């Protein structure tokens, strides 16, 4: 084929020329039509297509008009248009854009009469048996059926028959509710459970219009990633029990943050309103968690609402604790710690603290001239998907900033120091150290114990001074996850009562102990920290970005992402 291509771009081995809505673009060979349209900023509405799952092509919403240059007769040249591209011959039959790949010279029309008629038709079909549940459906406001019926629907109904009745409010698992009437049978949930988390418990039964999504007769949908099906369900068929009837989505503010359940550091969105968190959902990050997160991480915001939440600084008076104000608490803490020199003081910080907070702990340790600094090592069971066995989100940050080669390795020697009497004062920040053997017997040997927590616990009970801090959703700061990625937490809600942001508590302490200046901008604190922590050298807080930045080569891989990459290579998913 010898096409005289003057202004038009030649196809290379890697790129092909595609016309989308009249504009010629170049895309990589093998790109799906729907992704090529996305690159050309032409929206192709869809239900069943998802870049991380296989494409069954069953919703038919992504039908577009397609054309190809006709093969010229032997001995003849192809007819060219003004741009030097072969003239396109448009096919009368529409094709789906999600499962077909582009070829050289292909034309796609997403706004033609045919494409619009197809969408109107599909919308009408989906709505004829759909229940009028919008007023009671949790999906309202983020429902693709709602959005597309406004943009692509007919606007009125001509359906005069009875709707098909299916089971509603079906209990299919501890955290999920199913409504079969709302289900558009896109099969995203079935494919997710089969392909991503190897828990094949969902499937379709019955025929035709009576198709229903159903749960395995013996096994519920109970795996630790079940709530992702609620995220990907385009309508309100699968809903979260935790979020059911709690809040309308358009009232909630979404804050981009990081889950603190383990060292994976899944990117999340915290949805809140008026200082109350209603739900957490995953944010896509193809270097960390793809589009998913685990159920336990998703629901861990509930501990912020616990009755055991500390809301005021307290000091021990006799057998019980008395509420004091912050200036008093800070003053007493500083005085109490400064009485002891060097290695008579120990600090146990937490790998739940942000980098900035850990940096302030380092400054504190330098002021006290102590080398007895450590964080707690807290390992549990990871899994083969996203859960990391390290249950602390910022172990790598603790290592880099507190210069710990092996976090948790000095805890025993600190305990022995306390028992022998060589360590007289202990500052615990954000950990209940009773789990590591620091019980009443050990801690009562101390002359001075001050700790900071968000929830009441045995360590707080034994402390002379308790400082209430902020949880992960109530602070801004950076953390480094298990694969060495620096990521940003953002503040979604205010800490309750009189509890304060930890970086402010620590700065107050540093000022009280050493007259250090208070840094008012977190970005400035970050820069000061970056100047002395090698892995952060040259970075700024604002430069971290929404998807984070890789700062340490750990050599660790993420099993779920590896498998995803394999499926992208096989052409099964887009990725």
């Amino acid at each position, binding site marked *: 084929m010898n096409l005289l291509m003057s202004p038009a771009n030649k196809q290379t081995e890697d790129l092909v020329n595609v016309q989308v809505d009249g504009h010629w673009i170049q895309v990589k060979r093998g790109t799906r039509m729907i992704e090529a349209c996305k690159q050309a900023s032409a929206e192709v509405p869809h239900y069943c297509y998802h870049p991380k799952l296989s494409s*069954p*092509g*069953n*919703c*038919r*919403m992504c*039908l577009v008009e397609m054309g190809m240059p006709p093969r010229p007769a032997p001995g003849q040249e192809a007819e060219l248009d003004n741009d030097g591209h072969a003239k396109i011959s448009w096919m*009368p*039959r*529409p094709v*789906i854009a999600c*499962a*077909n790949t582009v070829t050289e010279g292909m034309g796609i029309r997403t706004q033609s009469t045919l494409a619009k*008629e*197809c969408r109107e*038709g*599909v919308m*009408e*079909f*989906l709505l*004829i*048996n759909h229940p009028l549940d919008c007023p009671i459906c949790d999906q309202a406001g983020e429902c693709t059926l709602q959005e597309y019926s406004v943009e692509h629907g007919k606007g009125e109904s*001509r*359906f*005069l*028959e*009875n709707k*098909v009745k299916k089971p509603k409010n079906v209990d299919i698992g501890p955290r999920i509710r199913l409504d079969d009437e709302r289900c*558009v*049978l896109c099969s995203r949930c079935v494919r997710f459970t089969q392909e991503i988390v190897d828990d094949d418990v969902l499937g*379709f039964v*019955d*025929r*035709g*219009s*009576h*198709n229903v999504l159903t749960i395995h007769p013996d096994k519920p949908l109970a795996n630790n990633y079940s709530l992702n099906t609620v995220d990907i369900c385009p309508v309100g068929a699968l809903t979260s029990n935790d979020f059911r009837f709690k809040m309308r989505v358009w009232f909630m503010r979404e804050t981009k943050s990081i889950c603190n359940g383990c060292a994976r550091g899944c990117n999340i969105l915290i949805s809140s309103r008026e200082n109350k968190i209603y739900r957490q959902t995953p944010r896509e990050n193809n270097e960390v968690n793809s589009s998913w997160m685990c159920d336990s991480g998703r629901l861990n915001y509930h501990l912020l609402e616990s009755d055991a939440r500390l809301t005021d600084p307290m000091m021990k008076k006799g057998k019980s604790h008395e509420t004091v104000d912050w200036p008093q608490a800070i003053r007493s803490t500083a005085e109490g710690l400064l009485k002891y020199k060097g290695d008579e003081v120990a600090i146990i910080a937490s790998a739940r603290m942000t980098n900035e907070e850990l940096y302030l702990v380092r400054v504190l340790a330098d002021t006290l001239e102590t080398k007895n600094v450590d964080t707690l090592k807290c390992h549990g069971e990871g899994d083969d998907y996203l859960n990391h066995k390290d249950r602390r989100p910022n172990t790598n940050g603790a290592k880099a900033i507190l210069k710990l080669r092996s976090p948790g390795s000095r805890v025993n020697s600190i305990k022995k120091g306390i028992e022998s009497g060589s360590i007289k004062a202990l500052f615990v920040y954000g950990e209940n150290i009773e789990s590591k053997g620091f019980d009443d017997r050990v801690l009562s040997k101390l002359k001075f114990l001050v700790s900071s927590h968000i929830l009441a616990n045995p360590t707080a009970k034994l402390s002379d001074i308790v400082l209430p801090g902020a949880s992960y959703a109530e602070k801004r700061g950076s953390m480094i996850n298990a694969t060495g990625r620096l990521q940003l937490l953002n503040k979604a809600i205010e800490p309750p009562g009189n509890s304060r942001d930890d970086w402010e508590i620590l700065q107050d302490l540093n000022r009280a102990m050493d007259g250090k200046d208070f840094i008012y901008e977190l970005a400035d604190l970050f820069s000061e920290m970056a100047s002395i922590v090698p892995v952060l050298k040259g970075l700024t807080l604002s430069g971290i970005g929404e998807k984070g930045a890789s700062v340490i080569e750990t050599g660790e891989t993420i099993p779920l992402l590896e498998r995803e990459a394999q499926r992208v290579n096989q052409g099964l998913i887009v990725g």
Partner: protein
Amino acid sequence: MEAPKYIKGKEPHKSEYRMIFRNVDRRGWDASIKSYIADGGYRDLKKALKMKPQEVTDEVKTSGLRGRGGAGFPTGVKWGFIPPNNKKPVYLICNADESEPGTFKDRYIVHQDPHQLIEGMLISCYAVGAKVAYIYIREEFPEGAKILEGAIEEARKKNLLGKKILGGKFNCEIYVHRGAGAYICGEETGLIESLEGKRPYPRIKPPYFPAALGLYMCPTIVNNVESLCHVKHIIAMGGREYAKIGTPRNTGTRILCVSGDVIRPGYFEVEVGKITMGELINDVCGGLRKGRKLKGVIPGGSSAKVLRAGEKYTIGTGESERTIGINEIPMDFDTLAACGSMAGSGGVIVMDDSRDMTWILNNINTFYAHESCGQCTPCREGSLWMKKITDRMVSGAGVPSDLKTLTSVGDNIAGRTICAFGEACAWPTQSFVAKFPEDFKKHTSRRNAGKELNPESKAAAAGLKR
């Protein structure tokens, strides 16, 4: 081979050319291999095994054989779609799911002449390189499945099937797999999914063309029972001789199944294109019932568009262009397609003027609504919707807008689905409403418009202020 004699009362009509159905209703004939071999059976398998596989395919290509299952796709071309450098096992599947309403031909081959099918399958397996073949037989033929399994064992005993067939290097196993009563299992990829043990949801094409990614994602050829039988005869007489039967581009014979308002409904094997609709209905089937006039004909199974008596069709191009009436339509693939219908599976349904087309369409819509697999949106929702509309019309609650709605729903289904079931359920609605609007209008009444037609809307309307 002597000329066969037939059971009294079941003799073929003089217009017939009994090739595939040579042994159906034959006197002194049974389904055993003894009968078959005594009549010269399996000779053509021996002949084929002496040829090269590609030569067998080339004969089928030369013969111009078109699929007899409904689509009429050239069989030799289909066999040629297997990727040239294929290293995966190749499978041949015989589609014995015969579920198209109005079609009843494959059942006679299966029940009365199973060895013809088996010989045709073995020859076809040899041509495409398949070592394993399946006969997917519909659940409603339990006897047929037993007969086929018995025939397979008979053939195995004579070393005509299994390992080292007739002492040569060709191995071929045939398994009978019973369906479970779903029309969609007649769709080739639905059949493949069912054979794999899954729900019969047809696959999207591209990329899952069976010749490349079929059964277990290996190259697979799916052919109709009758088509595979034709292969045997093509090898017997050679492709070129076979192509002389019938008409150009519509070669060979085909079995027409006539049902409906004729005096003598039944099955008739005729040369493709050598008999017209009028000859079929009036000569072969003895005409319509006394005092009745022809109203309409569905020429190719219920999926085909209906033809109305009295219509005129312009066929041919340039100098050969002419206009014909329904009785002059030759029963071949191309002309029926040019007349706006299709030859399909050969199920000819004749309707006289005693029939009300709304009832007939409702009957057809009920079938398709029941058989839709439900995978893709237009067919799943639309098929049941069309049935509900005709239900309402037939029960006296139709409104004038129903005609437009029916046509519009049909238009929104056809061409927009994963498989041809979309066209199959939409074409009857589109064609019946377009060609017999007066029948449908009779079932609508302006008085019905705006009525609360179901209990929920009645209750809702009760609370509304007008």
